[in-house]
């Protein structure tokens, strides 16, 4: 499974900021660590700001900080701001889907979609940060 670039940027940024309650980082600092475009990341951070997951801190040494609840916010909460991970469940249809073969294929793909949704919906940022620590 592959996540879109904006989704990955958002997840990296949010894990980085949520790792410390008083952590304040600039878009540049985050972009440099993950080798991503600062402009792209700035757009993503604005999207996260609109839903209250991060807030911009003004002034010298300003940047962004996490403003959500890391024990309540799940990977799915962040991912679905940028993409749909279960398009078939959301009614997206493709050519051939109305045939018996297409229906069988949708059934198999939905099994994967449902598992992906359950995984992302049950992993909080707090759990991700623990996983990150274990991987250090």
């Amino acid at each position: 499974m592959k996540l879109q670039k904006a989704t990955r940027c958002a997840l990296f940024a949010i894990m980085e900021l949520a790792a410390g309650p008083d952590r304040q980082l600039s878009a540049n600092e985050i972009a440099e660590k993950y080798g991503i475009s600062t402009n792209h990341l700035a757009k993503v951070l604005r999207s996260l700001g609109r839903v209250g997951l991060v807030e911009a801190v003004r002034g010298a040494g300003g940047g962004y900080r996490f403003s959500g609840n890391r024990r309540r916010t799940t990977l799915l909460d962040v991912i679905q701001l940028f993409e749909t991970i279960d398009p078939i469940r959301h009614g997206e249809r493709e050519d051939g889907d109305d045939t018996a073969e297409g229906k069988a294929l949708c059934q198999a793909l939905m099994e994967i979609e449902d598992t992906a949704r359950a995984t992302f919906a049950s992993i909080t940022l707090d759990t991700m940060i623990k996983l990150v620590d274990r991987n250090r």
Partner: protein
Amino acid sequence: MANSHARQTERKYTVRLAKAADIPQVIAIDAENTGMTKPEYWEDLLDIYNNRVSDADDDGQQKSVKRYRFFLVASDGDSVLGFIIGEVRAWEFGSPPCGWVFAIGVRDQIRQDGVGATLFEALTERFRKAGVNKVRTMLGRDATVIMSFFRSQGMMAGPFIQLEKDL
């Protein structure tokens, strides 16, 4: 073996084997959590897990794999705050012996206070003493709250896939 704890609530409680007198409170906690009251189910479980003659030893140091089923409660005096049930099972689905968690419940008003984590730690400690080094559970895909809890304890998807069919 009983474990004493004082977590965020500063409430002191002990984890110990469940007794018959705890069951009405276990039933009430389960009803709070699931919306269903299943008295016979819980009474049967106590009988299977803690009341069998072969399991009648105390919850002490493992002498053998004699005690491999655990129905534990976190209690503050006579008040039951939560429960957990698990057992060591071997060779089902080709799996070497491992601990299974079958049920866990905590009073709604003390969720997020660490009682569930303490119960989970207490059970896994007993599994380790019973000689296993893996713990498993199974959940509904839509049970995201409880799945988040188990993931927060470090659990990840395992190598088995559950399959079913309408009959």
